[in-house]
């Protein structure tokens, strides 16, 4: 070993550069982001999870959901669109500026797409000056967004309340980053966990029936109001009642929503949806 120090330095440089590139640089760039107050609503983003959803994150982790489900919406680009909310009284003037003549059956209507930000702003200003209400919207595009897995890309800010971050690296099942916005029905999730084939025919997800308790109903006994409504439960003398873990997991799933527009992730604003709560899962009375 004539070149021991040289060899050591080479190895050290290789390790140090990969550490610097993969850990140090991202840490300096996006590490230590604070929870931020949204200027528009004054709410914290990301909002703290309800306690039940926080427990559900542990159930999610313990059952290895992260092995098959990712929690990251990807985006490949963004389209700039011009939307009209109210044509105003001088619509003919406004239409002339855009050489458009048709009135719109439903409002808000998309007038143009594929604009540059400057051109969109200029057109919106021209329409606004003529009395109409028009705005420029950013429409994220990408395969994940086409699949309705989310409305915008996931950014570091979205994961600030997660420890550990359950981002996943395989997509044997659909992405769950925004599953609470996509499937807001708690009962759907409970049935899906009990037997995925009940709600999604052909699903290859395993059953998580051990998160539920099967009880034999005594003659004349009414099923629990919390019991799962399965299709054949009128004939059966069994009832399937979700255990607390199942409720916690569903509460966690419903708390997953990546839709708030952020500065770094511009997205069209959606109608506000009811946030996840600690309230017991509503089951329609039998």
């Amino acid at each position: 070993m004539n070149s021991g120090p040289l060899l050591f330095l080479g190895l050290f440089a290789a390790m140090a550069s990969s550490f610097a590139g993969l850990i140090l640089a991202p840490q300096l760039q996006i590490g230590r982001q604070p929870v931020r107050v949204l200027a528009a609503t004054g709410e914290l983003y990301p909002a703290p999870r309800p306690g039940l959803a926080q427990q559900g994150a542990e159930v999610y982790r313990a059952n290895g959901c992260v092995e098959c489900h990712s929690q990251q919406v990807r985006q490949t680009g963004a389209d700039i669109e011009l939307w009209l909310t109210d044509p105003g009284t001088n619509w003919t003037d406004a239409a002339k500026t855009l050489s458009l003549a048709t009135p719109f059956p439903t409002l808000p209507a998309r007038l143009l797409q594929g604009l540059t930000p400057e051109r969109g702003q200029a057109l919106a200003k021209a329409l606004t000056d003529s009395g109409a209400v028009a705005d420029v919207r950013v429409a994220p595009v990408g395969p994940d967004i086409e699949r309705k897995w989310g409305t915008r890309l996931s950014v570091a800010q979205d994961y600030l309340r997660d420890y550990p971050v359950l981002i996943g690296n395989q997509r044997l099942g659909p992405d769950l980053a925004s599953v609470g916005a996509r499937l807001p029905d708690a009962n759907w999730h409970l049935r899906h966990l009990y037997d995925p084939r009940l709600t999604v025919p052909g699903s290859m997800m395993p059953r998580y029936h051990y998160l539920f308790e099967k009880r034999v109903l005594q003659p004349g006994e009414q099923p629990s109001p919390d019991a799962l409504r399965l299709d054949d439960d009128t004939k059966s003398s069994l009832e399937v009642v979700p255990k607390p873990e199942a409720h916690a997991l569903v509460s966690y799933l419903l708390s997953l929503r990546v839709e708030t527009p952020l500065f770094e992730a511009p997205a069209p604003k959606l109608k506000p949806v009811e946030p996840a709560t600690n309230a017991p899962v509503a089951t329609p009375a039998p």
Partner: protein
Amino acid sequence: MSKKHKPSQSKPADVSKPGTKAAAGSSAPAKLSFPETSEPTAARGATPVFLIALLGFILFWSDVYVMQNGGDLAAKSGAFPSQVYYPYRSYAEVDKLNPKAGGAAVMELGEFVYKGKAKCDACHQPSGLGTPGLNPPLAGSDWVLADKPDRIIRVVLNGLTGPVDVNGVPFNGTMLPWRDALTDADIAAVLSFIRNSWGNKAPLVTPEQVKAIRDATTDRGGNWTADELKAVPDK
């Protein structure tokens, strides 16, 4: 054979030597038991040309990558700003995509200030109708709907105390000053909000208008009175 066995018999401690041990189990122990005649050495040779070319290309590519994805290297957002994610390339590009404070955004911020940040609705009510005798209404108020918002900007900055007539109806209460609690943008937004809500319709108030009056009245200590404000032109 004889060479190998001699030392191990005379010195039993040598049996534990790795060379000796391996030789004992091997089919050709005599050859392996000798130390190697020469050590391999590392010498300096000429670097291949293709390696230099490859390194040059990698350097060029990484430079291009930094230029394209490094954000605004010259702008104040700094190199590789944390707000820029793929597919967006620079801070300026992301900034351009975000809605500027237009009509809808100002009204949204104004509503937040009115109902959340400053809680104006505690006295002036969510309906903008105020409290009879104490807090004047904002809906349809001649003060709010004046052509120039100079008087109401002063009211929000320093507050108002004492008797005041709104639409000919007397009120006598005290409004707190908001000079230190609200920014120019907040005050402009909340005034724009009250001038365009509950059936009101009047031009928006800009942060520049608020800033001009804030700077002009920095020395003013206490609340305004209605008579003082009447001296300010509102047309």
